[in-house]
């Protein structure tokens, strides 16, 4: 497992860890029930704060990507297709919001956007 911390990116370190582990789980490079390094080990190996690492794990657990067994550690949760779909829906929603903002900036109507989508869809 590789995790890279970029100090210059401006993104919070816990966010960088959260995103990288999440991506590994979604793309399947971390399999279900695979153990994750303990919070303290990961923090020390990355030379970062324990609190920072704990926050990334807490977030992953809250979102259902990992689960914790008391005194055993953290493991990758089995990802069902439903959840991946949910995840992608959320992404689409975010992109759509972006589109809406951009459209408002250049005064495009909802119909214009739908037309654009139809054209792209046909081309594909």
């Amino acid at each position, binding site marked *: 497992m590789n995790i890279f911390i970029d100090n210059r990116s401006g993104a919070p370190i816990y966010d960088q860890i959260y995103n990288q582990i999440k991506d590994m789980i979604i793309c399947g490079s971390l399999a279900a029930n695979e153990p994750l390094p303990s919070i303290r080990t990961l923090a020390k190996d990355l030379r970062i704060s*324990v609190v920072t690492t704990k926050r990334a794990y807490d977030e992953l657990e809250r979102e259902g990507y990992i689960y914790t067994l008391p005194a055993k550690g953290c493991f990758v949760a089995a990802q069902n297709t439903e959840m991946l779909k949910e995840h992608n829906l959320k992404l689409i929603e975010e992109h759509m919001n972006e589109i809406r903002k951009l459209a408002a900036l250049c005064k495009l109507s909802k119909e214009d956007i739908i037309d654009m989508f139809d054209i792209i869809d046909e081309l594909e």
Partner: protein
Amino acid sequence: MNAIEITNLTKNYKGFKLDNLSLTLPSGCIMGVIGENGAGKSTTIRSILGMVKPDGGDIKIMGKKMNADLKNDIGVVLDEVGLPAIANVNDVNKIMKKFFKNWDEKQFYSYMDRFSLPRDKKFGDFSKGMKMKLGIAVALSHKAKLLILDEPTSGLDPLVRDEIIDILNDFTRDDDHSILISSHIVSDLEKICDYIAFIHNGKLMLCEEKDILLEKFRFINVTEQQLSELDQSAIRGKKVGKFGVEAIAEAEKIPSGFSSVPVTIEDLFVFMAKEEK
């Protein structure tokens, strides 16, 4: 359990007052205490160690009041490492063996190898970096659970500083090992600290989880006009220049549309301390 618990610590000196300082270091964590020279960092540390008698307040270390027994559990490194100038590494080992109940000779010599410190050279002839490394090796070789360091990296070159941070990082792999470290150079500490405390003019300005601090505040570059339109309670410090104003503001009070960049702990301290003056 908390490694250190300070409540309402007060100490009066002529022309300086450590004022009602309270802070807590949870066990297993690293806290960086930041402040300029003369802010009260060393007085705080010396009070914890019982080297200074406070005028008021209460200090508990691992749940207990400071006592002779507790000294075995605390590794201490002060800015000047106090060892006899004529002692070499082997002599230091002999002295410490008598001094500490849990002195671990093997551990001590393994640090000597790791730091490449010569066995027969006199302490007085050591360079500043070597002295500091020896001091840290002593602090880490008697099975201490709490490490208290006062300015351990000041005046050292970046390579040695990095090495020291590596060792401190390794020390806290054990989850009941904690560190309190004071410094005025914060950039090298910033990454490994869990908590940050700012001391300024004898007062605790803030004590907070590092991540929360980095999230709570943002840097903005604005004109004086724009600055005056902002919620003034959001501004925590500013530098007015000829071509604009650099300011640190509370992230959630910055209106959308203002571009802002993340702060570093060092920026935050400098801006806040200046604002206080």
